């Protein structure tokens, strides 16, 4: 496992402050954050390549805070590979190999599809090939912990998918703990067991990727993670309504068992002309509502739906990106964005300027 507690590090004017998180043994952590948020510094601090000013690092059951990099049992892969330019591809891959790891070096090169690059000069490799060789070099030693700094960024989509699949498979088979920096939210969702959101040297949120994506702790995180509907407004607890309950249908007036209700209330969130119904444990007062665009459905006529939030709005902008369509609505002066498949948009015959119905469930609304 990787356990980081109150980690502080300084590189020039940049500070990593009070960073804490855990990636369980054999888990796959992903670090997400904007450029300059300290992602690489964090990996280097864990690797022992950047001196830390405070905190503790444990890898597995060992406290390694004061151990040199060569004794930490880690492999690191940088975005730019850092292949040794005076050595051939094969010599790079076998740089840290021992007699015990020759087989794993051969296996990893075969699985990453670079077995035939052995005699090549690293200067002659493409950016993607270099990343694969750097991956093979780090994995060949079978370290218990692997740190990956955007290792797939220079790969074409086909090779990226292959490399991602193979790294994930090796991770499962060999049981190493991984921590990967990525800008790709899809990658984070596909690979990660734990997502760590970093900004300006601090951890903003840490948890299961689905939890971080669906329940961002702040509007900033929501926007950073690509949530298109982040609305500022006011929450009002509907005290006159019975406690609502998020798991299953309940007839009005049904008493919800106390252990299931656990503080959840029916809430009304008002943002301009929009009155949004939701449930949660927030108190009355100012808040932000986050609704992911893919949670918003569009219909030509008023839908007969269980969704509690149904609005009529005008299509202000309709854009398609491959098989996806993005529909920006104006609902009584408030913007609302829906994401649907291009085929759905086509079948509905959506046109800019037309009036349509938008709906989303109360549970699709996350307050922060």
């Amino acid at each position, binding site marked *: 496992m990787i356990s980081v507690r109150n980690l502080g590090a300084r590189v020039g004017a940049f500070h990593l402050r009070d960073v804490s998180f855990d990636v369980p043994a054999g888990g796959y952590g992903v670090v997400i954050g904007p450029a300059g948020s300290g992602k690489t510094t964090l990996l*280097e601090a864990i*690797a*022992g*390549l950047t001196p830390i000013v405070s905190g503790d690092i444990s890898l597995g059951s060992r406290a390694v805070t004061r151990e*040199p*990099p*060569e004794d*930490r049992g*880690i*492999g*690191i892969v*940088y975005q*730019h*590979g*850092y*292949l*040794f*330019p*005076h050595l051939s591809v094969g010599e790079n891959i076998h*740089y*840290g190999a021992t007699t015990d790891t020759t087989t794993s070096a051969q296996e990893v090169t075969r699985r990453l599809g670079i077995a035939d690059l052995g005699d090549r000069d*690293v*200067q002659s*490799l493409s*950016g993607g090939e*270099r990343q694969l060789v750097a991956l093979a*070099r*780090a994995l060949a*030693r079978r*370290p218990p912990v692997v740190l990956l700094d955007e290792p797939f960024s220079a790969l074409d989509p086909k090779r990226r998918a292959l490399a991602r699949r193979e790294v994930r498979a090796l991770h499962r088979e060999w049981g190493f703990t991984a921590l990967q920096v990525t800008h790709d939210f899809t990658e984070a969702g596909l690979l990660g067991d734990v997502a760590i959101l970093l900004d300006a040297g601090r951890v903003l949120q840490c948890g299961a990727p689905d939890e971080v994506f669906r329940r961002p702790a702040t509007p900033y995180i929501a926007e950073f993670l690509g949530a298109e509907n982040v609305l500022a407004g006011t929450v009002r607890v509907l005290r006159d309504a019975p406690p609502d309950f998020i798991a299953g249908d309940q007839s009005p007036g049904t008493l919800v068992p106390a252990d299931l209700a656990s503080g959840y209330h029916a809430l009304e969130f008002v943002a301009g002309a929009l009155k949004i119904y939701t449930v949660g444990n927030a108190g009355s007062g100012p808040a932000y509502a986050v609704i992911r665009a893919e949670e918003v459905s569009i219909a030509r006529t008023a839908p007969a739906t269980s969704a509690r939030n149904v609005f009529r709005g005008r299509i202000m902008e309709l854009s398609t990106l491959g098989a996806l369509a993005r529909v920006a609505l104006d609902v009584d002066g408030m913007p609302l964005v829906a994401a649907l498949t291009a085929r759905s948009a086509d079948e509905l015959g959506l046109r800019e300027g037309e009036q349509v119905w938008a709906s989303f469930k109360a549970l699709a609304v996350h307050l922060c």
Partner: protein
Amino acid sequence: MQTAPPTPPRQAVYRVISVVAALGSSVLLLFLVAPIAQLVTRGGVSGIRAVGVDADLRGALLLTALTATGATLFGILTGTPLAYFLARTRSRGAGAIAAVLDLPLLIPHPVAGIALLLVLGRDSLAGSWLLKAGLGVVGTPLGIIAAMLFVSAPLYVSGAREAFARVDRRFEGVARTLGDKPWRVMRRVTLPLALRGLVASGVVMWARAVSEFGAIVILTYNPKTVSVLSYDRFTTFGLSEAIPVAAALVLFAVIPLVVLRLLRYERRLDQPW
């Protein structure tokens, strides 16, 4: 947004500035090349011939080559660790050391010779110890090496520091994570990647050592290096006798120039990929 084209009077000013700059550069280039070209033209052939017939010149060339090589090897052995320390340390202490290293380059070389005489002369502490150990400095090849080392080692350390600084620390970091201890990283990664810069700095140091006169003439007039011999021939016999020796020295200095050019045109090895 496109910028407006310069107005005609401004264009004329730019043209005049360009012409003046080109003229100035040409004058400087001519000033640097003309004396050397003249010397080689007038004394090149006789200089080469003199190497064959003039035993003093042959001896001086051999002495110069050996002492310059000795000084360079000593400078590389002792200066390389210092250069690495300076390249990898960001502290006021390292900055102060780097500044001190520049001092020998700034003081007049006869003054450097006098300073060395104070430290290594027969009456000095170090000089007397060396004498007791059978290593006389003043008036010996060791004095020549000391003078050469003093004036040229800072050039090596400065160049080597740059060569190490160009090696991205992440190469070293990756090697550490692959199991290497720091000394092994130095041997397997840092030195190979900095090698070209280190060799180039060594060549510069050697060339500077070969051309040294001021400090050597204070410490060791005899035996004579080529630079001292050319001065001696000039003061004793006049210009015509000095020209072949001086031309031989110029031709000797072409060797490091060629080596440097060869090194410069090789591909760079210290980039991230």
